[in-house]
């Protein structure tokens, strides 16, 4: 029998209530990525800081498909790379580098997510990256970082350069590689990742036509970006727009094992 993440003993009660809630939400995030075909076998990773322990974060057990990840199978590590939880799976070394870089460099970030989708890899490989095409794109207008590719990210030296390239942003094009988003909550990182993915998918088909485009003015791009930013600063904003609980209920309807 292959190892099955869903059969691990539950950590509910063994970890703090806050950590358990974060584990459930983060496992739900992995399931949503799988449900939206944004996964890449066992590659890529999503992390969340452990509440009350800013120097610890949760990340996927390397080797488990995203649609099998559970709250109890997530691995807890500290910023030195020490594994603080028991389990049969290791942490992906590149995953540690990337998420350690984001979470140790940014106190405001609770969750960071990285994908290798077709659309994300394509846009990350094109000079200029994201084009401000639609209302949805304006969330990222002049506010997405670019990080040049350095090879598999298992070199700790890359941390400082990742932090430099992400500085001031909550989205990053990992050039020739994929996408990364981060946010002050698990749900906000998910909503941002979903929207960035849709922007990349849209841009691919628009620009492949080579046709003349309707291009929004710089003023409109800028004012919409500012509007989105103001909205995001309102406490609780986006908590309905992202339909987070509803999305997770839909996941649970098919398979609620992420909550175990």
């Amino acid at each position, binding site marked *: 029998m292959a190892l099955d993440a869903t059969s691990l003993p539950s950590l509910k009660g063994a970890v703090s*209530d806050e950590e358990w*809630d974060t584990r*459930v*939400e983060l496992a739900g995030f992995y399931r949503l990525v799988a449900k939206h075909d944004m996964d890449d076998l066992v590659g890529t990773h999503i992390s969340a800081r452990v509440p009350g322990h800013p120097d610890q974060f949760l990340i996927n057990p390397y080797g488990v498909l995203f649609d099998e990840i559970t709250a109890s199978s997530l691995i807890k590590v500290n910023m030195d790379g020490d594994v603080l939880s028991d389990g049969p799976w290791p942490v992906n070394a590149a995953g540690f580098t990337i998420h350690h870089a984001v979470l140790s460099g940014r106190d405001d970030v609770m969750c960071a997510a990285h994908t290798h989708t077709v659309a994300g890899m394509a846009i990350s490989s094109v000079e200029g990256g994201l084009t401000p*095409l*639609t*209302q*949805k794109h304006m969330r990222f207008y002049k506010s997405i970082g670019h990080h040049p590719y350095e090879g598999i990210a298992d070199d700790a030296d890359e941390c400082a350069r990742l932090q430099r390239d992400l500085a001031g942003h909550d989205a990053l094009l990992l050039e020739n590689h994929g996408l990364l988003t981060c946010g002050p909550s698990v749900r906000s990182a998910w*909503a941002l990742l*979903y929207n960035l993915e*849709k922007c990349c*998918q*849209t841009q691919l*088909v*628009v620009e*492949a*036509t*080579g*046709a*003349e*485009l*309707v291009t*929004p003015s710089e003023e*409109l791009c800028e*004012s*919409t970006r500012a*509007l*989105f930013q103001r909205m995001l600063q309102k406490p609780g904003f986006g*908590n*309905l*727009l*992202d*339909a987070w*609980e*509803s*999305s*997770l*209920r*839909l996941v*649970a309807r098919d398979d609620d094992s992420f*909550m175990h």
Partner: protein
Amino acid sequence: MPLDLSHPVPTIDVRAAVSPEEWEVRVELAGLYRLAARHGMTDLGGTHFSARVPGLDHHFLINPYGLMFQEVTASNLVKIDTDGEVVLHNGFPVNPAGFTIHSAIHMAREDVVCVAHTHTVAGMAVSCLKEGLLPMTQHSLRFHNRISYHDWEGVATNLDERERLVRDLGGNQTMILRNHGVLCCGRSVPEAWRGLFALEKSCASQLQAMAIAKATGRPIKFPPESVAQGTSDKLESRHGKDTVSRDWPGQLSKLDREEPDYAQ
């Protein structure tokens, strides 16, 4: 805040509180949400479909804010007035800003029963093309000389934009919202579905054909204008007949079998 995944239920018996005519529209509109979800036309909790409540009250039904389309039911649709104010409280919130586009059209167009707005990839993509929707396939000829364009003005929270939305829509049922998405109205809910479905396929196929034409230099072929107009006219003449959306009863019976809670 701990995660609360309890399933929200209406606080009142909506079916008992509304007319049979309203209930029928509620079931149809909830069905439209479910069909759109099945066809990948969702954008998390964003975008809305609305329907006019039969009668003279200028009341409308819209989706409860915060739910994915897959969780919309006849009873959790929220009844609002033209200002987006809730007129029948069933325990669910609405997004008044999201109703701006819908209310503009509902106020100006008595013939429109249903207004559906989406942010699909193909719809957003065609909304960025200067030439817009091309009269390329049988699916897209439905919209030939019957589709409007509205320039993007930023997030549609400005009530002044209402008059420009109405002006741009004119007498059409379908409008491309430039740099934003698409809007499909219907003189019935099934007609809005037919528009959403046909427009989505039209946009997606046009984008692929344009990419081939660009890459190979082999141009897109277009039917002669007389054929294009004739097809558009013929499809329009089906308005009010059951052929407007021949698939609709079958679609609803599929939902009845596979996700019957939509009609509750």
